[in-house]
């Protein structure tokens, strides 16, 4: 297993970034609600990532017919400058007319879980071999559960998901809001991102604590942990993202310095019968979308069948 070195977020950075991001959400077009959709992960027989004809690699496999497709609408957000420098007054622009749709199915076998995601994309952007060329990409965000990080309740109406990779209620660790006496800086809840890009052989696992503050990126060549299969035809991507439901133990003896985020080897542990808040995002490389320029959804619920 190969892991990319850990990045520690600076407290100063957080103190600069987070208050600036806490802008009013009413009428801004930002997601302010939860449970807007439900993705039901149906339990099927067993499968393996490596089986070339199985559901992990074959979007037409019969196992997928037992799953119901969920439409997940995404809105366009430009998160233009997430640098720690100040002045975020006009950092975000939302085009309410622009909506992109993902069609998502999910199955699991108790050990692994697969997401089959379809979306329209007229261009096949599988590389970034020139300066103006960007990748198509897809990401699933799962906040760490409240039991791991008390106070981090994702997706409540009063606590909008603001940015892919962070979800803040705007309060500091004492529950104070910006401007209130004694306010320190806004708490940011760690989230777990699964990121697909067509040039990668597998889904990338990212743990982040907010804009510009990626805590650590965990890339692994362990094929039992993450998986990706993809197909682009008829102006449409079909992507199958897979992951083990439970990752390696945490703290990981191989990385004793990286013990501050999340159980299960930095992967949010998913259990059969459990429900999880999730957010999806999509980038179209042909539109120069990358990083903060993306289409992003509201919080939805992933319901994993027992």
């Amino acid at each position, binding site marked *: 297993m190969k892991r990319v*070195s850990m*990045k520690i977020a600076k407290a100063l*950075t957080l103190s600069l970034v987070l208050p600036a991001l806490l802008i009013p959400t009413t009428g801004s077009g930002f997601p302010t609600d939860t449970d807007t959709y439900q993705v039901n992960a149906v339990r099927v027989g067993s499968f393996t990532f490596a089986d070339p004809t199985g559901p992990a690699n074959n979007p037409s496999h019969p196992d997928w017919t037992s799953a119901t497709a969920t439409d997940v609408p995404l809105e366009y957000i*430009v*998160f*233009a*400058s*997430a*640098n*720690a*420098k*100040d*002045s975020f*007054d*006009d950092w975000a622009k939302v085009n309410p007319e622009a909506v992109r749709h993902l069609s998502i199915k999910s199955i699991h076998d108790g050990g692994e879980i697969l997401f089959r995601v379809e979306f329209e994309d007229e261009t096949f952007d599988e590389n*970034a*071999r*020139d*300066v*103006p*060329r960007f990748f198509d990409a897809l990401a699933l965000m799962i906040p760490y559960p409240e039991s791991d990080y008390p106070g981090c309740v994702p997706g409540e109406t009063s606590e909008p998901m603001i940015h892919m990779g962070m979800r803040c209620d705007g309060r500091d660790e004492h529950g104070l809001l910006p401007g209130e006496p004694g306010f320190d800086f806004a708490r940011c809840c760690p989230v777990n991102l699964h990121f697909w890009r067509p040039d990668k052989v597998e889904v990338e696992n990212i743990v982040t604590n907010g*804009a*510009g*503050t*990626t805590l650590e990126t965990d890339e692994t060549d362990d094929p039992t942990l993450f998986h990706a299969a993809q197909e682009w035809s008829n102006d449409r991507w079909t992507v199958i993202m897979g992951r083990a439901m439970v990752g390696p133990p945490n703290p990981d003896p191989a990385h004793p310095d990286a013990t501050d985020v999340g159980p299960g080897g930095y992967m949010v542990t998913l259990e059969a019968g459990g429900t999880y808040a999730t957010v999806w995002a999509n980038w179209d490389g042909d539109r*120069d979308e*990358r*990083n*903060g*320029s993306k289409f992003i959804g509201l919080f939805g619920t992933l319901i994993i069948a027992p």
Partner: protein
Amino acid sequence: MATIEKQVRMVFDLNKCIGCHTCTMACKTQWTDGRIDIPLENLPDNPEGLLYQYWNNVETMPGRGYPRGVFTPELGGGFTNPTDPDDWRVDPLGPLPGIVEDYGAPWEYNYDEVLGSSAVDEPPGTFPVGDTFAATESQMVPIPSPDGPDAYSSNWDEDVGAGKYPNTHYFYLPRLCNHCTKPACLAACPKNAIYKREEDGVVLIDQDRCEGYRRCVAACPYKKVYYNAAKKKSQKCIFCYPRIEQDTGPDNLQPPRENFCFNQCVGRIRFAGFYDPDLGPNAAENLAKNVNQLVDVWGVALRLHPEFGTAPNLFYIPPLSPPGFRRNGRLVPNSQRIPIKLLAKMFGDDANQTLRQRMRRIKEIFRILETERAKVANGGSSALVDILVAREESDRLQLYLG
């Protein structure tokens, strides 16, 4: 941003640049030549994606620049409010130049043919940048070779210039990263991968943090950040910091602390030194460096396109030129063939100056230069000319002064 203890400053005397590109080749062979495997941390360590990059280049002005269209509104860059030093907003969503169309397709010297030495001619290996221009061996010409009306490459405009005969004119403009006091690239980076070193103000990109989003490329109005398509990282001039940090060693047997393009400058146009912002321009420590003499005491060096608000730390002494001709063929007394207005559109002190103020400054600089030159020509001496002549390398390359 951290406090900068001292800021590296550069002055280029455009009256001395001969357009030989030795600086460009020094930089190219040192850092972005695909043949060289650089083991240093934080530096590009493989050849792929580097060959098209010219961290240092020399342009002929007036011209379209490098990459094509740099400094045009189409390519944009800079700050939303360039006159407010505390406003760090940038628009990092601007258009990006293409490698083949705007920078010029990558190519490599065929050293064996050029130098007759196979010892240095190691093929750079596969070069997987782009579907249509992959090279697998040393090339004397870019692949694809520039062709057609839209063809372009680095230095495509060499010696073209502007003006109608006999008043044609051009000058050379060497460029590298300005290591700005307020870098737009830094402001645009969503990963906080770009930083200014506290010890010298050099702007660097942390290659581990960089995700290759290219916000910095879009935001830099000078287009001096490059995207390495093979590594999916942005890269730029590092001001040869490993060379600068190299100790001179006992008995000065080691090379001095110099950046390579400055060291190799044939015309000796380049001056380097540090400026301590806490001490101010009148402090003896600052005045001991010739860059500060040229900028703050003599006031003969200006910034390139300061209107972008990045406060570049590379200053230029604008080029004098021969007098222009009338239609009847007679010289126009006290004229400059390179129009002052053209120069004023390029050079100035800061983002607040109007074009008219810039024109006045340039005329003032020309008066100073001509006056001081005349002193020497008449058998006298001039402290300014002494600096500009730079008889010793230590007169112009003064990073060693700390």
